[in-house]
C-alpha cells in the first residue's frame, strides 16, 4: 500500500503550482546532545521539521469537510511517510532551542497542493482513476436532482402586544379609641403578552441550470461519472420536474409518491446512487461590510443507495447557508448559487469516495 501511495504521490507532485493552501505547523523534538555540544544535531532538526509538516497537515485536514477528514485521517500513517509529495513549499519561520530541557521547536509555513490532496483522497478510497474508472462506474452509476426555488416576497409581521390591566380597590373602616376612621387602598396589576408571527415567504421555482453545470464541473473533475436527470426522464420514465414543482414550491420537499416514482425509475435504469436536494435563495439585502447586494442561499441534500428495495441513506449535506455578493440581486444570487453548488458537489464526492465509489 505504501508503494502505491508513493507512486500516486509522485504523480501528484506535478501539480506543484496548482491551488496551494498555506498552513503553519509547530514541530518539537527532544534531543540527546553530544559530548561537546548541547545543541540539536542536523538530523534532530530534520525530525523537528518533519513534525512541523505533520502538525501543519493535521491543521489543514481539520479544516476540510468531515467525509474528507475521515479519509485522510484514516490514512495518516501512509501519508506521513510521503508527505513531501503534497508539500509545495516549506519555509522555516522561527526556531527555539532549550538546552536545559534539551528540546528543539520549529515553526514553519507549509504549502499543500490542494488538487493533489483531493486526488489522493479519491485514490486511497477508490483507486487510480486512469486505470479502472469505467469498471467502477458500471455498478455504481450516480445521478442527482437539485431543485432551486427563490423567495419572491417576504412579509414580516410586527409584534402584537396585548396588555392586561386589573385594578382593585378596597376600603376598610376601623373604630378605636381615637374614633372611627376609613382607609381606602387601590391596587393595579399589569401584564400581557407579545406575539411574534413568523415571516410569510412566497417562493417560485427558479432554473437549476447553473447548479447543474457547477455540480457537473466538480463531478467531472473528481472523475465521477453520472447520468443527468433529463435522461432519466426521457429514458427511464422518471417524473418530469414540471410535474412536481408545485409541491416543492409549497412544501420544500417531495411527496412520498413522487419520491417513490423517482427512485423506481432511476433504479430501473441501473442508477445505484441518487442524490437529491433543494437550494433556497432568499431575498437580497445590503451587505453591511461591502455595501453590495447580498443574497443568502440555503442548501440541503441527501445521498441514497437505491440498489435495494428499501433505499439506504448513506450521506447528507447541510442545511448550510452560503452568501453571494454582487452589484444587483441577479448577480449576487448567481454567485451564491455557484459557491453553494460547488461546495455541495464537493461534499457529495467526498461522501461517495468514502464509500469507495467513483
Amino acid at each position, binding site marked *: 500500500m505504501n508503494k502505491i501511495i508513493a507512486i500516486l504521490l509522485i504523480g501528484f507532485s506535478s501539480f*506543484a*503550482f496548482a491551488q496551494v493552501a498555506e498552513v*503553519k505547523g*509547530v514541530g518539537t523534538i527532544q534531543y540527546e546532545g553530544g559530548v561537546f555540544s548541547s545543541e540539536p544535531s*542536523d538530523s534532530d*532538526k*530534520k525530525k*523537528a*521539521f518533519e513534525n512541523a509538516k505533520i502538525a501543519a497537515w493535521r491543521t489543514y485536514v481539520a479544516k476540510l469537510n468531515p467525509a474528507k477528514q475521515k479519509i485522510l485521517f484514516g490514512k495518516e500513517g501512509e501519508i506521513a511517510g510521503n508527505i*513531501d509529495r503534497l508539500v509545495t*513549499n*516549506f*519555509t*522555516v*519561520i*522561527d*526556531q*527555539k532551542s532549550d538546552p536545559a530541557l534539551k528540546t528543539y*521547536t520549529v*515553526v514553519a*509555513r507549509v504549502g499543500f497542493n490542494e488538487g493533489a490532496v483531493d486526488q489522493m483522497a479519491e485514490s486511497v478510497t477508490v483507486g487510480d482513476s486512469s486505470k479502472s474508472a469505467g469498471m467502477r462506474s458500471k455498478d455504481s452509476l450516480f445521478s442527482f436532482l437539485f431543485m432551486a426555488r427563490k423567495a419572491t416576497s417576504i412579509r414580516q409581521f410586527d409584534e402584537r402586544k396585548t396588555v392586561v390591566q386589573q385594578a382593585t380597590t378596597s376600603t376598610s373602616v376601623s373604630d378605636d379609641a381615637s374614633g372611627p376612621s376609613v382607609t381606602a387602598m387601590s391596587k393595579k396589576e399589569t401584564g400581557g403578552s407579545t406575539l411574534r408571527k413568523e415571516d410569510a415567504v412566497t417562493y417560485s421555482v427558479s432554473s437549476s441550470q447553473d447548479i447543474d453545470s457547477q455540480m457537473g464541473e466538480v463531478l467531472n473533475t473528481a472523475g465521477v461519472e453520472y447520468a443527468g436527470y433529463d435522461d432519466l426522464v426521457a429514458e427511464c420514465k422518471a417524473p418530469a420536474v414540471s410535474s412536481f414543482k408545485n409541491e416543492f414550491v409549497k412544501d420544500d420537499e417531495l411527496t412520498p409518491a413522487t419520491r417513490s416514482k423517482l427512485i423506481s425509475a432511476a433504479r430501473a435504469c441501473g442508477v445505484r446512487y441518487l442524490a437529491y436536494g433543494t437550494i433556497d435563495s432568499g431575498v437580497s439585502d445590503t*451587505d*453591511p*461590510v*461591502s*455595501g*453590495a447586494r447580498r443574497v443568502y442561499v440555503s442548501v440541503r441534500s441527501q445521498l441514497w443507495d437505491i440498489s435495494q428495495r428499501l433505499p439506504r441513506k448513506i450521506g447528507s449535506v447541510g442545511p448550510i447557508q452560503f452568501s453571494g*455578493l454582487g*452589484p444587483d440581486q441577479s448577480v449576487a444570487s448567481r454567485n451564491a448559487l455557484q459557491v453553494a453548488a460547488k461546495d455541495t458537489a464537493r461534499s457529495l464526492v467526498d461522501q461517495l469516495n468514502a464509500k469507495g465509489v467513483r
Partner: protein
Amino acid sequence: MSPGDLERYAKKVDIQCSEEHSAFVLKKSGWNVGFQRLLVRSFFWCVALFFASQAFAGEKLLFSGFAFSGDYAHRTELYPYTSQIFAGNKRVLDDAFRSRLMARPVALEKVSLELGKIGSGTQLSVAFALNYEDVETQVLDGQYLVILRLYASILGFDRDSKSLVAAYPVRIKYSTVMNHPPTDAEKLKLFKSLYLERLSGKDGDSVNAFDEWLERFEKVEIKSKYSKYLRVTNVVVDEDAKKVLSEAKKNERAFKNQLAQALETAISYHNNVPVVPSSTGEAIGAKMAYRFSDGNSLDLKLPDPDYQVGFVVRGFRYKPVQDGNSKQDIYRVLATILIDQPDLNKQYLNEKIYNTNIVVVPAGTTLKIDNYATYYKTLIELVNELSRQFSKPDTSWMKEHVANGADAESAFEKTNELFKGLK
C-alpha cells in the same frame, strides 16, 4: 529582462531555496541516498521557483485605485470627510489619483492601467487604501492650529486568491493656522484640497495625499510572496496614562487606533518592511474589507502574523523647573515595547522605554503649552526613534531611552536579525 534583473531574481530564488532547506546542511561525512534524493528534489524546486520568479518579473502590478478599508456600514463614522468627498462624486478620488500617477514615470512603470488585465495573468494588484482619517485643533496663543491626518496603505493584494500580500503604511499630515475655530465646511474643504490639489502648509511646504503615497510607492518593492509577516496586535494604555487622556478629553479608542497606525507606519518606514494592517479600531480579525471607488469590494484574507508587536503606554510625567530667567517644562512618556513569536512563545523584545521633551518658556511670556499635544509629540518621537533601532541598534540611544540601558543591546540585536528576515 535585464542582466541586473536576472541576477536579482536568481539571488532571491537562491535565498528562498537556502531558507527552505536550511535544516539540511551538508555534512562533510555522511552523503547518503536520502540526502542525494533531497538534493535532486531541491534542485527541481529551485529551477521551478526560478522560472516562476522570471514569469512574475515581466508582470506589472494591476492598478486598483482608491479604496476605503473597513466595513461599509462604518464608513461615514471612520472617514467623515473623505466619505463626503466620495459621495459627492464617486470618480473624483480615483481620477485625481490616476492623474497624479500619470505625472510620475517611476511609479507608472511599476503598474498596469489596462482594465483587460484584471482576470488574466498575474493578479497582483496595488491600491491606495485609506485606513484612518483625523482632524485635530489646538489653541495656541489665540490662534488655531488645525492638523489633518490621513493614514493610508500601499496595499499589495492578489485579486485571484483574495489575499493581502503586503501593506506599506503611509502617513499624510498637513497643518495650518487659522484665527478662528475651523467650521465643518472648512475642514471638508481642507481635506478636499489635500486629495485634489497641493496644499501649502504653515512651514511653506506643500502636500498632496496621492503624491505622498506615490513617493513611498516608488521606493518599495511589492513581491508576489513574503515568507514572514509582522503585525501590531496590541496597544494598551495603563490606568496612569488614561488620566491624561481623560483630562484632555481624548477618546481612548481613537488614541489607541492612532498610536497603532503611527507605530506600524514608523516600523515599516524606518525598516522598509511590510506590515499586516491593524484593524481600524475594530476587533483584529483574519479578514479585512476593502471597498474600491469603482464599486468593487473585496474581503481580503490577511496573513496570519508570524511576529506580533505590542506597545504599552505606561504613563505621562510632567515637572516644571524654575531656572532664573526661564521656566522649563519637562514632559516624559513611559512605555513598553514587546515583540514576540506567538507559536513558539519566543520573546524578542520586552523593554521599558521612555522619551523626554523639555520646553523652555522665557520669563514674562504668556505662552500656554498644550500638555496633551506635547505628550503626544514626545510619544510619536519615541515611536519613531524606537523603530529605527530595529534595523540599526544604537547603544547610545538605548542608554538614554531604555530602562535597561546598554544591557538591552542583545535583545535589539536579536530583533535586528528578525527584521532582516521580514524584507
